[in-house]
């Protein structure tokens, strides 16, 4: 397929919500204001691990202007129900415990109680007046330390799911999983070169610029109305229903515009608390917003990890075996992305002999949440560094080595299934042929690094509906939160299907009351799955319109053709618009899909750095992200995904980390000291969109949003090695760490 087949797909129109967003009119979570609205505030734990002996809310309740105070007592008790909330599998009892601590606090910043008051200042004052007595317990922050025999136990009832069997003793290890194929010993025996290294990565946060915000109204008729910034309104509905033990139909969720999510806005935090406060405060709406410190204390992050990787290859550069052990810190409750990490780790390579062991370990840090290709950056940082070392030892060009071992259609993933048509080879070739890869890089302490990345992607359930207006425009009603331009990419697919101009599609994102079920905007699924739904809508509209045309001409419907938005019969023709203006019976359709033909994505990143060997600071000189994007519906927004993912990966690689003191308290919970990249920390990020159409989608779409965060840390580590001869094995590769490593290796200035 070539893009010239399409009239709309592949063009770069302005987004439908653009003007609202550049004029400040768009309504985000914190912008919602309802009559009689109260303001809520949460009290959080000052300790990393402590038993709650008592909570005295009397002083808070007595403060003028305070309307309600709630603690975990107000949350219904939920049993050990394990449920699939789309982006992750969660035990609801743990989730409830994370919303408001029941008998123990498990991390610094764990929510304990909440207040609703006439204004946010009073709510904050009141929260400070709640007296909590604690019995402080020993804490553990590191995954491997938490696995030790004498480690403090976080969850007394937790037993390891050990390779499918339930353990019998207390532990912090929630799960041990394994992927295994072939004969590891034989594979390593066949290798001429074996490299084995250990890696560490820090806890990092999604870092969306909009803090969490929600308004809830628990009405007198027991309807719970929620307005919030979320990646998925149906996910909020399900979680609210489970946590508050009410039927889902009683929860109506209206999503606002969302100021970034990256996986971190799938879970609820504030919404159930605001609902409880609303009910207790006489059914008045309650707005809750987090401060930035609360966002860092109590939401996200993604797991810190320990990863050991061993890989072997023959002299001609063929990988013969790969083995790894991955320990991911889940935070206070089980559920790290170690499973995904295990899949991403060797995802780009064809391997017959492979074993990956993964451990999901609880520690006294915030409960981890999904973060863009969850678990993938950690894994690629480790595996791609080992691959780089193999290529060096074998004297083979890094991209040539990857091309030699790259997976292609029909090869097996580590967990078994065969891969469908993928574009990894094409992506590697595009990287190899890019001017960046062959450009000279003169100068001292400069180096170029390359790394590859893999991500599964996801399809998932989507619904949408549409109706034809008399002026020939089409209302598109969809339920997928638009975080980066999906209104445009969906409207474009509908316009293409209908054969009418993009400007004639009027997309609107609505909540649970306005459209059929949708999974959230996660897993790189929206343009793919909701795109499928929209394609179905288009076909249904054309079918109905053909029937209307047939009635109009009084001919059999079989005789009516439609092409490029024009209906025709025996020389008579009518444009979509003309027909729309003459509809006696309106045309409105809906579609629901659960497509499974989502295809995985592959990316190759190239980065040039200069290392100030006197200070340890790494400057990025040039960056190119190459990726198989299936078919780029709106190329500018696809480029934006690649650039944004690369930038987040750079932050993760170089400076971002949670820093704790010896009492287990998070000390850098601000955007001053949690150091995300600024405009001065990055160069322009060049992108190459490789278009290998996904056969599982009518327009060849494959998810593009997640894989770009997978290679950056590894690419940077490999570049730093080329610049200095020192291999960094710990993230972030902050100046202090790089400087220490350079001094230890006696690298001359």
């Amino acid at each position, binding site marked *: 397929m070539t893009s010239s087949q399409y009239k709309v797909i592949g063009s770069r129109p302005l987004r439908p919500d653009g003007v609202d967003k550049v004029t400040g009119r768009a309504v985000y979570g914190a912008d919602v204001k309802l009559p009689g609205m109260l303001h809520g505030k949460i009290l959080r734990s000052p300790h990393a691990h402590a038993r709650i002996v008592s909570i005295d809310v009397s002083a808070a309740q007595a403060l003028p202007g305070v309307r309600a105070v709630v603690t975990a007592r107000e949350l219904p008790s939920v049993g050990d129900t*394990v449920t699939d909330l789309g982006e992750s599998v969660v035990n609801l009892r743990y989730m409830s415990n994370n919303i408001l601590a029941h008998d123990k606090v498990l991390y610094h910043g764990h929510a304990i109680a909440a207040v609703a008051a006439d204004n946010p200042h009073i709510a904050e004052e009141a929260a400070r007046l709640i007296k909590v007595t604690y019995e402080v317990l020993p804490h553990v922050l590191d995954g491997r330390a938490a696995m030790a025999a004498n480690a403090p136990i976080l969850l007394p009832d937790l037993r390891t799911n050990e390779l499918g069997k339930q353990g019998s003793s207390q532990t912090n290890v929630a799960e041990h999983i394994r992927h295994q194929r072939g004969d590891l010993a034989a594979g390593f025996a066949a290798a001429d070169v074996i490299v084995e290294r250990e890696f560490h990565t820090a806890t990092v946060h999604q870092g969306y610029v909009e803090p969490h915000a929600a308004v809830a109204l628990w009405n007198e008729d027991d309807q719970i109305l929620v307005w919030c910034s979320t990646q998925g309104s149906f996910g909020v509905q399900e979680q609210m229903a489970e946590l508050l033990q009410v039927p889902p139909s009683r929860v109506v969720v209206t999503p606002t515009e969302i100021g970034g999510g990256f996986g971190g806005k799938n879970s609820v935090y504030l919404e159930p608390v605001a609902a409880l406060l609303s009910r207790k405060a006489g059914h008045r709406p309650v707005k809750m917003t987090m401060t930035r410190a609360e966002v860092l204390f109590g939401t996200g992050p993604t797991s810190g990890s320990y990863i050991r990787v061993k890989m072997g290859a023959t002299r001609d550069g063929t990988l013969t075996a790969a083995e790894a052990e991955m320990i991911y810190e889940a935070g206070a409750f089980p559920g790290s992305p170690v499973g995904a990490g295990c899949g991403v780790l060797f995802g780009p390579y064809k391997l017959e002999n492979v074993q990956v062991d993964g451990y999901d370990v609880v520690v006294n840090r915030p409960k981890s949440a999904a973060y*863009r290709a969850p678990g993938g950056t950690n894994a690629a940082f480790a595996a791609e560094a080992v691959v780089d070392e193999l290529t060096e030892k074998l004297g083979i060009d890094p991209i040539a080595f990857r091309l030699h071992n790259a997976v292609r259609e029909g090869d097996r993933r580590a967990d078994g299934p*065969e891969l469908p048509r993928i574009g990894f080879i094409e992506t590697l070739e595009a990287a190899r042929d890019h001017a960046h890869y062959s450009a000279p890089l003169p100068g001292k302490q400069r180096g170029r690094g390359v790394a590859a990345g893999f991500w599964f992607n996801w399809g998932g359930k989507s619904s949408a509906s549409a109706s034809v207006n008399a002026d020939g425009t089409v209302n598109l009603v969809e339920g997928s939160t638009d975080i980066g331009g999906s209104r445009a990419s969906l409207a474009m697919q509908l316009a293409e299907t209908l054969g009418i101009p993009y400007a004639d599609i009027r997309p609107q994102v609505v909540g649970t009351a306005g459209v059929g079920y949708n999974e959230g905007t996660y897993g790189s*699924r929206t343009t793919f799955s909701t795109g499928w739904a929209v394609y179905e809508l288009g076909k249904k509209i054309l079918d109905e319109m053909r029937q209307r045309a047939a009635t109009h001409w009084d001919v059999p419907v079989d005789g009516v053709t439609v092409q490029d938005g024009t209906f025709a019969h025996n020389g008579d023709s009518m444009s979509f618009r003309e027909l729309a203006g003459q509809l006696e019976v309106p045309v409105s359709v809906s579609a629901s899909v659960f497509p499974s033909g989502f295809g995985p994505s592959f990316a190759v990143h190239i980065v040039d750095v200069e290392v100030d060997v006197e200070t340890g600071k790494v400057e990025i000189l040039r960056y190119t992200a190459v990726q198989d994007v299936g078919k780029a519906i709106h190329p500018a927004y696809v480029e934006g995904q690649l650039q944004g993912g690369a930038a987040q990966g750079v932050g993760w690689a170089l400076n971002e980390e949670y820093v704790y003191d010896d009492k287990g308290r998070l000390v850098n919970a601000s955007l001053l000291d949690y150091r995300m990249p600024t405009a001065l920390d990055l160069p322009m990020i060049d992108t190459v969109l490789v278009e290998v159409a996904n056969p*599982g989608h009518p327009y060849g779409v494959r998810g593009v949003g997640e894989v770009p965060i997978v290679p950056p840390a590894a690419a940077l580590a490999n570049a730093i090695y080329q610049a200095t001869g020192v291999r960094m094995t710990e993230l972030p590769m902050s100046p202090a760490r790089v400087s220490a490593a350079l001094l230890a290796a006696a690298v001359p200035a």
Partner: protein
Amino acid sequence: MPHDVWIPPVHRDLTHGVERVAVDGSTIGAVIEALDAQFPGLAARLTDGDRLRPGIAAAVNGVVASRGLRQKLTDASEIHFVPAMAGG
């Protein structure tokens, strides 16, 4: 015609190390029943009542089955039980 069912490494304790099993069945649910008859305990590992256990997906010929246990199997298929993951 029997399907080629791949047993996940973590459940091979129940299959005495056997990695691939040939079983018949017109749906994923029927396949799991057949597996359980041969290797008791497998169904309990893979299912939770009338659904696949949360976090587990069935892949039929490399494609994740959207209908879970009720997914129809027409031709002889290669079946894997893989971690279900969506992403961020």
